[in-house]
């Protein structure tokens, strides 16, 4: 879940009707870049300022690139190597790691678990965040700011703290909402924490920790919808819902797609919630999700090759999703209006 947060921090919300996408401003290279600065003056000073702008851009991006190399590209390269060479393992090296990883009897059930989880979590997140962001915009600036703060707060409780909090909230004998749980028909903790309810429990946990930051981003995107378009829609007699559906949502469609893909990649790698809930409540297993299975391969079977192979599979899927975002949706293209 933290990967979606780090990506969210990179993309700040645009203000007003700025033509330049601030994300593009952080990407180095000729062409795009701080075009606002370059528009301001005549040719020679413009070239110098463009050079300064480029240098500053590189300065801002270098720390990220260093960290990306150390903790992103480096481990990726090692995983590719480990999946074939199986360093330190007793299994033979070669492509056997891939076949062991994918032919294990727990692999397909883990894929099914994660797929079912995504089928609930993704729509819940997207629809929930958009509705809440629209609501925040409707209630006006002051109340809206308070609401945004309230939504972001649950995101402060992540990982193991979040699992413990949710365990207490959902255990009928311990929960402050015990009477509501019993009204819903759950009298014992075992009835709540059944393996068939797991996807709902994890979706709730993931939603609670993630929705706040996305509301902030989608709200920012909504603020970028030109006022005159909304005025025009209102003059034409559109209701709130019609304005949202026909004017606002198309205008922020790129951000919605961005949220969908970030949520997808984060959800695909779910690990903490099933791992901790298994330890707490003995429900699920140590190989419920794909990431858990990878950990099990590595540290219970000592099979780093299979674990690397599984991780690379997850990477390929997430990279395909990111590629879709970048090239098909052209999310990082700047619009020079």
């Amino acid at each position, binding site marked *: 879940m933290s990967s979606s947060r780090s990506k969210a921090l990179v993309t700040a919300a645009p203000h007003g009707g700025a033509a330049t996408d601030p994300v593009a401003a952080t990407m180095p290279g000729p062409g795009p870049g701080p075009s606002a600065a370059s528009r301001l003056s005549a040719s020679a000073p413009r070239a110098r300022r463009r050079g300064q702008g480029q240098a500053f851009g590189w300065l801002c991006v270098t720390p990220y690139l260093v960290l990306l190399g150390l903790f992103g590209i480096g481990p990726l390269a090692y995983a590719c190597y480990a999946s074939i060479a199986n360093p330190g393992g007793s299994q033979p090296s070669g492509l*056997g790691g891939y076949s062991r990883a994918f032919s294990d009897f727990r692999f397909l059930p883990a894929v099914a678990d994660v797929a079912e989880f995504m089928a609930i979590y993704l729509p819940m997140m997207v629809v929930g965040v958009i509705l809440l962001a629209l609501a925040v915009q409707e209630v006006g600036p002051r109340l809206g700011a308070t609401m945004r703060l309230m939504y972001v707060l649950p995101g402060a409780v992540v990982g193991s703290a979040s699992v413990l909090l949710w365990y207490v909230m959902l255990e009928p004998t311990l929960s402050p909402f015990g009477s509501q749980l019993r009204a819903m028909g759950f009298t014992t903790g075992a009835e709540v924490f059944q*393996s068939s309810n797991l996807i709902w429990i994890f979706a709730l946990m993931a939603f609670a920790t993630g929705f706040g930051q996305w509301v902030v981003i989608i709200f920012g995107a909504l603020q970028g919808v030109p006022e005159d378009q909304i005025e025009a829609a209102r003059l034409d007699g559109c209701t709130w819902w019609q304005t949202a559906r026909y004017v606002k949502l198309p205008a922020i469609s790129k951000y919605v797609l961005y949220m969908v893909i970030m949520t997808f990649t984060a959800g695909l790698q779910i690990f903490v919630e099933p791992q901790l809930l298994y330890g707490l409540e003995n429900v699920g297993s140590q190989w419920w999700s794909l990431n858990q299975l990878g950990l099990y391969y590595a540290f219970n079977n*000592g099979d780093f090759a299979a674990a690397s192979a599984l991780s690379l599979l997850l990477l390929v899927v997430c990279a395909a999703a990111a590629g879709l975002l970048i090239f098909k949706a052209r999310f990082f293209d700047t619009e020079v209006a």
Partner: protein
Amino acid sequence: MRHNVVSTSRSLIAAAIALAAGLLITSCSSTTSSVGSASPGKVVTSDASTTLLVWTDSTREPGFQEFQQTHPDVKMKIETYDPTTLLTKLQLFNRTGAGWPDVVFVSNPDQIANLASTELNFAQPLDTLIPAAVQQGFGATDDSCKIDGKLYCLRNDIGQTVLWYNKKLLTQFGYSVPTTWAQYEALGAEVAKQHPGYVVGDAGDQYSYYDYFAGSGCPVQDVTGPNTVHIDLTDATCTRVASMLDTMLANGSVSKDSLFSPDLNKLGQAQKVLMLPGASWFGDFLFKPASSFNTPNGEIAAAAYPAWPGETTDYSGGFGGGVYVVSQHSKNMKGAAEIVQWMGTDTAYQKSAPTYPAYAPAAQAWSQRLSTDPFYATDPFPVLQQQASKINPEQHPTSFDVQAAFTAVLTPAVQSGKNITSVLPQLQSELVNLAKAAGYVVK
């Protein structure tokens, strides 16, 4: 941009084809993980100048510190560690080539098969490091430390299952203590009819394996040879347990709640747990504590485990306890063995231990705790001692996760009211798959 997209998608397709080809090629290769076979260990070392790194839990830490003070010639450094990370850390140490602890107190005895495997290569065989007389003092309690005939750990304490019961309530209701499982089932039916709400057992979680199935001799961890395990849930020793539990779960005399759940806790606090087949530490840790069942003094007693028809011995299951392991990578295995031997056998230390010591003379000294304890109606020690040598020898240590299989199959079935008998085939396939994935040959 167009050009980039095309070349990127081309290279992605190429990578996908390569991957698929690789998978096809390797699908024919036979790959076996060797987590099942036992490591032969390394040559015994005795460099007394090295500092031994001891990993312990907080309960055993005072013991290690006492040894350190009374044996200044053995240099040691004591650290507490998180038991859930043990296997992970050892894998990492194997890869970096340094950092292994010399002595570990392992709180999950099921892990010994993993620790002794040729995959992890961690546990050193102790047959030559521990004197024969001491090994005899442990007797059958160290059987759960033996893999392929070699002793890979020393037992600290054992969780032999006994029949705990509330003597006061039992006499009050006019029942007698069952000596066979048939009598136990009949008692359950009586209790369900005359005193609904009271329970005589619990099968709501994976621990039912230790409390019911293991004692019966159900082949789940029946290691019959190196890397070979016999798993057969169609055996009569398994089906008799399943049908008994089905009847008792149906009439409510056996609880569906997990042993450590708030729901069984509530039942226990209301003193409605009439009887509980369970480990030797149930008395002190489940019935006595105020936050647990909080049973008043003078009510709880222990009886011998019920017997199945046709069995000459009333076998128990082995549920919990801890073991001491010496590392193969230690530069001073003799010193490390001295530490674990003292921890396991020292009467003065084990006398104050919280749970039943595995070493027979130490257990004898420990018995004073129970005989002077006003909590028990009658001294349970003779029963505990009797069952200590009767842990069913078919319960071997294995490197596949039996608890995970029971959690995945048995617990949901019990919770939803399904018959255990009907899910035995599913449990069988889950156990067989796990054993095969761990590298065992399943017969």
